[in-house]
């Protein structure tokens, strides 16, 4: 890591690490009476850790000029490892929160282990930890390959990756301590939000600087999506997190918006976090790794254009479908519903474009679990966008809202689409990055595939059942015209489905662990080869560059 930095970059990195250590000390001092103090210690440890790593590698030989004619893949490799680590952590917490609903005393009467505190650890862990690291890692890879340009420097990608993971660690540890602003999927407090803005600006600059130096005249589709992801997430994040801290030494802040305006801003953010974090970014992945792995060009350029601008324009109107029949003015609800239904067009255009790309490669889908991951992801993308448009219709929403149906819908997208496309892309990318011709075990890829698919299906079916039963029980009247069921009766009816959901989630978690093991072993395989080459067969050195199957 340090060896790939130039001396100037090493000095800059030390300066930045020292700055973080200083911020950490300032936070710990100013927040010594508050939970913020502990968060300051974490920032300090990150800064000191950076300084130690840099100091140890400071006198390593500098990278030579020949680096400028190669792609810079070290941050991508680190991002893959971090994403898999977060996947295991985030999904473990997911199984735990799921189990809490069936067996509520699994909190051991500890404040940090109660449902309300560990649920955001699960959601942020998988969305930001797993998903975000996967997006950063793959975007650096795709950006360089499709632009035929190296990243602009060696320091800023590391700043983005490490700064982003500091954001994730502060967020997750904060929830356990009770630091949250209660905005779903935007729970971190003001100082963590500021950190993310800084990281994001650098991320955007890397993107634009690389694109400006590209040797391809056209910007490839995958980059449109990655750019939309970076830009729109920045807009959403900044607006939704506008808040006033009660003091510089305390974590607590108050959102500037209140009541109905806050609800609208929150779900404008919340729905478009789904759109631009969990959809646009991962469509970027799909548009690169699926055609690469299938060995087929994208089916239709025209469909790509329509679906990209359709998604970018229409999604931003759809958030108000989270607020049907509430105190939000009806005209906004109606706009949200209308645009959500129209949104099916570009969504299915994307899913169809992906599946049509596989025409002529279906035998590969049958034989290759990696490509099958991507194919199933495209199918689940199509299914969950259809379900989403359907649930946005006011009459349907009156039944589905507030129930587990919503949870099932989210997981059809998150497990079936987001996680599957990521695993598929990783299984394609890992051998390329570590210069192998295949994964450590293709059998284990197959095992992971079936665990993930079975887990997703069990999960989604359990939540469809529980959600619809719950919704119906709440609105059932008996003959005398009064409500037939008490709330607690509807809750008791959920018990078997909550157990089934935890079981489905557990299968998915086991799959992720198998995947992490397989990736770790592939990396080990590569390491032992490199050391073998250096000691025994130095003459084979040039051949290494040749083992890049799809580049």
């Amino acid at each position, binding site marked *: 890591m340090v060896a790939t930095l130039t001396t100037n970059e090493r000095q800059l990195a030390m300066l930045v690490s020292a700055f973080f250590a200083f911020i950490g000390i300032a936070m710990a001092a100013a927040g010594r009476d508050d939970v913020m103090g502990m968060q300051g210690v974490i920032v300090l440890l990150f800064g000191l850790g950076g300084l130690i790593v840099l100091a140890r590698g400071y006198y390593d030989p500098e990278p030579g000029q020949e680096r400028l004619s190669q792609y810079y893949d070290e941050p991508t490799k680190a991002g893959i490892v971090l994403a898999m680590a977060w996947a295991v952590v985030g999904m473990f917490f997911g199984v735990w929160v799921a189990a809490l609903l069936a067996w509520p005393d699994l909190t051991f009467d500890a404040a940090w282990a109660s449902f309300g505190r560990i649920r955001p650890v699960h959601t942020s862990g998988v969305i930001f930890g797993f998903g975000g690291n996967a997006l950063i890692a793959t975007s650096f890879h795709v950006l360089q390959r499709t632009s035929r340009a190296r990243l602009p420097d060696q320091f800023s990608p590391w700043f983005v990756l490490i700064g982003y993971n500091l954001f994730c660690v502060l967020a997750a540890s904060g929830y356990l301590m009770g630091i949250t602003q209660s905005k779903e999927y935007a729970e971190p407090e003001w100082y963590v939000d500021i950190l993310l803005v800084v990281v994001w600006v650098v991320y955007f600059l890397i993107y634009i600087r690389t694109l400006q130096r590209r040797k391809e005249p056209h910007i490839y589709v995958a980059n449109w999506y990655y750019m939309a992801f970076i830009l729109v997430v920045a807009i959403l994040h900044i607006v939704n997190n506008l808040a006033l801290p009660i003091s510089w030494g305390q974590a607590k802040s108050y959102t500037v918006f209140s009541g109905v305006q806050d609800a609208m801003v929150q779900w*404008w953010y919340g729905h478009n976090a789904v759109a631009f974090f969990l959809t646009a970014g991962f469509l970027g992945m799909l548009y690169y790794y699926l055609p690469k792995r299938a060995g087929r060009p994208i089916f239709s350029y025209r469909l790509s254009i329509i679906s990209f601008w359709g998604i970018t324009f229409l999604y931003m109107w759809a958030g108000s479908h989270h607020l049907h029949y509430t105190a939000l003015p009806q005209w906004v609800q109606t706009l949200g519903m209308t645009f959500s239904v129209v949104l099916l067009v570009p969504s299915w255009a994307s899913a169809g474009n992906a599946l049509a790309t596989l025409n002529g490669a279906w035998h590969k889908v049958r034989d290759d679990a990696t490509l099958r991951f991507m194919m199933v992801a495209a199918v689940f993308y199509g299914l969950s966008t259809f379900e989403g448009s359907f649930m946005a219709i006011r009459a349907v929403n009156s039944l589905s809202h*507030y129930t587990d149906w919503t949870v099932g819908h989210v997981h059809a997208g998150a497990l079936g689409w987001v996680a599957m496309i990521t695993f598929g892309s990783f299984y394609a990318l890992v051998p390329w990055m570590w210069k192998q011709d295949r994964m450590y075990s293709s059998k284990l890829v197959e095992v992971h595939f079936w665990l993930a698919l079975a887990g997703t299906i069990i999960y989604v079916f359990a939540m469809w059942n529980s959600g619809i039963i719950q919704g119906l029980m709440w609105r059932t009247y008996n003959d005398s015209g009064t409500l037939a069921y008490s709330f607690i009766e509807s809750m008791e009816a959920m018990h078997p489905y909550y157990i089934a959901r935890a079981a489905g989630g557990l299968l998915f978690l086991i799959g992720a662990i198998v995947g992490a093991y397989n990736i770790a072993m592939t990396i080990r395989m590569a390491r032992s080869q490199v050391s073998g080459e250096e000691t025994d067969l130095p003459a084979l050195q040039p051949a290494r560059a040749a083992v890049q199957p799809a580049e």
Partner: protein
Amino acid sequence: MPTFHRKLERSAIGFVLAIIGVASIGGLVEIAPLFTIHETVEEAPDMRVYTPLELAGRNIYVREGCYACHSQMIRTLRDEVERYGPFSLAVESQYDHPMLWGSKRTGPDLARVGGKYSDAWHVAHLINPRDVVPASVMPRYGWLQRNTLRVDDLGRHLAAQRTLGVPYTAEMIANATSDAYGQANPDSPHAAGVTERYGQATNVRVFDGDPGRPTEMDALVAYLQILGRLTDAAHRQAERTQE
């Protein structure tokens, strides 16, 4: 279109500007008018602000993530109105920074839970929900009773809220700590100021059953008991529609 787009694809900056432009329209059209159209939030002259103790309780509700399982938004549907009470009005959360409408009902809606149960019921329920509702899947919150409430910084909380437009007076801010103490200790000299500043109807009592230092339990129960009772606007609206 393809010719135009082929040109656009060749300019990174052009593409960036196009994305920002296209993505901004929806939010601008839907959000900006909510601040300017006067009818978005109803009038409720009787609406009062949270007392410092209730606000502290609300912050505990936020801290523990209660909103993940409990909504505070009764929709305009017959079964919801019959189950929970008059549907929620925008004005009822006009001082809520942030709103806690919620998105999921693993447990019941709490928009009108205030006054529905006794303080003792809430305390018992929070210590172990299964003692009072055997089938409940809610976590236990026993430590709320053990934790002393932090009251020394409540003035700062109120001041921040005032900056954001909540009508706290300078007097309320200056007495925030003493009011929080007084609201949970009716026999103390601090109690009189609470009703003076927040109205005669304010609940002033020992919420957690244990007089003396205010606990986090005091604050959370005080908050739960005021839910849906800051204004009568929703009940008045319901009566009007019935007539």
